[in-house]
């Protein structure tokens, strides 16, 4: 345990007693089956990071095939056996497996568990001055449900036929006739959705009910608002996918035809289904979740970036209230835009017009959020710490991602772009140099709170700059290829198409960038592990921040605060005129403030 400095700030007085109270919990109850939100948050974060790494490895394999189609991959290729990489050369089925599982793992096992399960769980109760989540045991259940879902997904690689290979989108009828791996994908999703539901209920009740005295809704840190709206999206959008998953299981296991159309012929033979079903129903129910899901991917990132920017500009956020309203409007609208993923399903002009319009409308709150964060920099005293570097990079990266989404959301402009590499470029920009960068910012920012030690700034910069360069190297050329008409999910990356000749060389550039991006993560990995034991020790508030989590010790004991903190002001009272320091924490009582 780190040595904790005893100060007069709240949260310190009774620490030794807190430790004594919990000595009787064995190793398993304290570190494995814990109900403490901080332990659970770290479990989610570590598991999420491991899955992110694994998902990255899957795509690095794919990028070999894309750069050098058909070429044997030296040494590593042999590891995958004759069924997947005969002679070290990738089979198309394996490419599809990698693609489907890369998407599934990154979205459902990597980013969201880290962003929501990890950061949400660890930071939210601390930021609202609560001792823990409202339902600690349900919190533990939600982590283990996620864990089981992850194991199921990993196990699916080992069943005959391999893992799911119908895209992370699992469109029918292909997914219905696919091998066993798809069934495991469906069961894995059921575990993950359960985990998500339990988690979102916990977050909402906690935020509403467990706020410290004085912490009114409009004194909440923006991070908390972002997690709250995210939780509502998860709560209401996931169940239809669960229903669809059940129906897909019925089609696959009970032979029903929810998604199987009449008269389907597979490889020259009539499919053994009575038909009468509708493949579009799957798409509707899938995208009903998957569109709000992209906001689940970005909102926590916005939350983290907001906290880091306010702290490192020594200024309040610009347009805080406007940003909160934008969050809710975005959340509400996100439920009625989903069919912009389905413009090519034969929809008529009225339906297309409706979904284009709602999609254009939803870009407004996104722009409000991004602009407010940008304007927040104006006149700030910027500290270029590692978290701030990542947060600053997030802004233009998300800008590119968001802007490239606009032609996709207009049904006519979508015609040449749908299912091309342009789409892959667009969504990776928002999630990779977008969300992932924000998550890195969060790790560097809250690492001291979680461990009582700083991460190295030098290694942090060594992580940031190459990552920024190489991540753009991977995704920027995708727009070029997409505009040239190169389709996504092509096993050879477009090499067999004449029209792609001019742009095919980018595949090598992108693949090399991907492998260099991987190497750029080494400083981070070293920094992360080294700092846990050897990082510079810090007190409660190393960043001189204003929000409630910085009132607790670093790391906080079980129960977080010995006495419940109170909020006396808004969340971002930086550089208040007349105040001796350039920050006035929320938890500092009025008389201590002068």
């Amino acid at each position, binding site marked *: 345990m780190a040595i904790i400095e005893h100060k007069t700030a709240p949260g310190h007085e009774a620490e030794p007693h807190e430790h004594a109270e919990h000595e009787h919990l064995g190793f398993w109850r304290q570190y494995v089956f814990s109900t403490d939100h901080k332990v659970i948050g770290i479990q989610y974060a570590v598991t999420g990071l491991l899955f992110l790494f694994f998902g990255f490895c899957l795509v690095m394999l794919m990028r070999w095939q894309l750069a050098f189609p058909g070429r044997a991959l030296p040494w590593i290729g042999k590891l995958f056996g004759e069924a997947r990489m005969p002679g070290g050369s990738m089979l198309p089925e394996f490419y599809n497996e990698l693609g489907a599982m890369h998407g599934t793992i990154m979205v459902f096992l990597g980013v969201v568990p880290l962003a929501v399960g990890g950061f949400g769980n660890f930071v939210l109760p601390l930021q609202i001055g609560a001792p823990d989540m409202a339902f600690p045991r349900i919190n533990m259940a939600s982590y283990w449900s996620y864990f089981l879902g992850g194991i199921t997904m990993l196990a699916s690689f080992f069943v005959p036929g391999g893992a799911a290979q119908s895209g992370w989108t699992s469109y029918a009828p292909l997914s219905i006739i696919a091998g066993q791996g798809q069934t495991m994908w469906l069961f894995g999703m059921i575990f993950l959705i359960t985990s998500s539901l339990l988690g979102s209920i916990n977050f909402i009740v906690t935020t509403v009910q467990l706020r410290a005295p004085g912490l009114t809704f409009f004194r909440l840190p923006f991070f908390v608002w972002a997690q709250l709206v995210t939780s509502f999206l998860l709560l209401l959008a996931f169940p239809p996918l669960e229903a669809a998953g059940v129906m897909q299981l019925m089609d696959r296991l009970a032979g029903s035809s929810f998604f199987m159309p009449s008269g389907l012929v597979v490889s020259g033979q009539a499919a053994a289904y009575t038909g009468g079903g509708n493949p579009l129903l799957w798409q509707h129910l899938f995208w009903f979740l998957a569109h709000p899901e992209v906001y689940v991917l970005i909102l926590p990132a916005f939350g983290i970036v907001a906290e880091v920017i306010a702290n490192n500009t020594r200024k309040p956020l610009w347009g805080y209230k406007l940003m909160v309203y934008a969050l809710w409007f975005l959340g509400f609208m996100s439920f009625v835009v989903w069919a912009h993923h389905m413009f090519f399903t034969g929809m*008529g002009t009225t339906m297309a017009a409706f979904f284009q319009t709602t999609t254009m409308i939803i870009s407004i709150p996104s722009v409000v959020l991004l602009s407010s964060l940008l304007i927040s920099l104006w006149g700030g005293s910027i500290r270029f710490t590692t978290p701030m570097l990542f947060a600053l990079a997030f802004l233009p990266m998300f800008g590119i991602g968001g802007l490239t989404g606009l032609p996709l959301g207009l049904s006519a402009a979508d015609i040449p772009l749908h299912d091309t590499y342009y789409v892959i470029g667009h969504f990776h920009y928002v999630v990779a140099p977008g969300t992932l960068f924000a998550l890195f910012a969060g790790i560097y920012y809250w690492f001291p709170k979680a461990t009582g030690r700083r991460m190295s700034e030098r290694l942090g910069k060594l992580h940031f700059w190459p990552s920024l360069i190489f991540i753009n190297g991977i995704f920027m050329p995708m727009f070029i290829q997409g505009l040239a008409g190169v389709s996504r999910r092509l096993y050879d990356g477009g090499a067999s198409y004449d029209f792609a000749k001019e742009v095919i060389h980018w595949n090598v550039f992108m693949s090399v960038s991907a492998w260099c991006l991987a190497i750029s993560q080494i400083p981070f990995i070293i920094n992360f592990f080294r700092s846990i034991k050897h990082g510079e020790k810090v007190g409660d508030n190393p960043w001189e921040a204003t929000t409630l989590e910085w009132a607790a010790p670093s790391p906080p004991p079980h129960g977080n605060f010995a006495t419940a903190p109170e909020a006396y002001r808004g969340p971002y009272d930086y550089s208040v005129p007349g105040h001796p320091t350039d920050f006035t924490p929320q938890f500092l009582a009025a008389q201590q403030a002068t």
Partner: protein
Amino acid sequence: MANHAEHDIDRQVRTYIVIFITLMALTFITVAISRLHLPVHLAVTLALVVASVKGGLVAGYFMHLISERKLIYWVLGFTVSCFIAVLLLPLWSHFDPIRN
């Protein structure tokens, strides 16, 4: 004070019995209407109206929704709008296909 609370509960219990009888009656009415083999649109409308009344009674009285707090109403309001979206918007695929 205790008496007042008890009296409240007594009143509620009486309400529950009345609602129960109403629900039984409405159940039999629903089945009776279905025996008439009305044209589809009318049959569907009537069935849904009766079901909504029954559902409203269960939600309002058994689930105490009629005297719930604002927060719960807001959550349910948001939910109902999402429910309507998932129920109705996919139908558009059928009713507004691409035309040559």
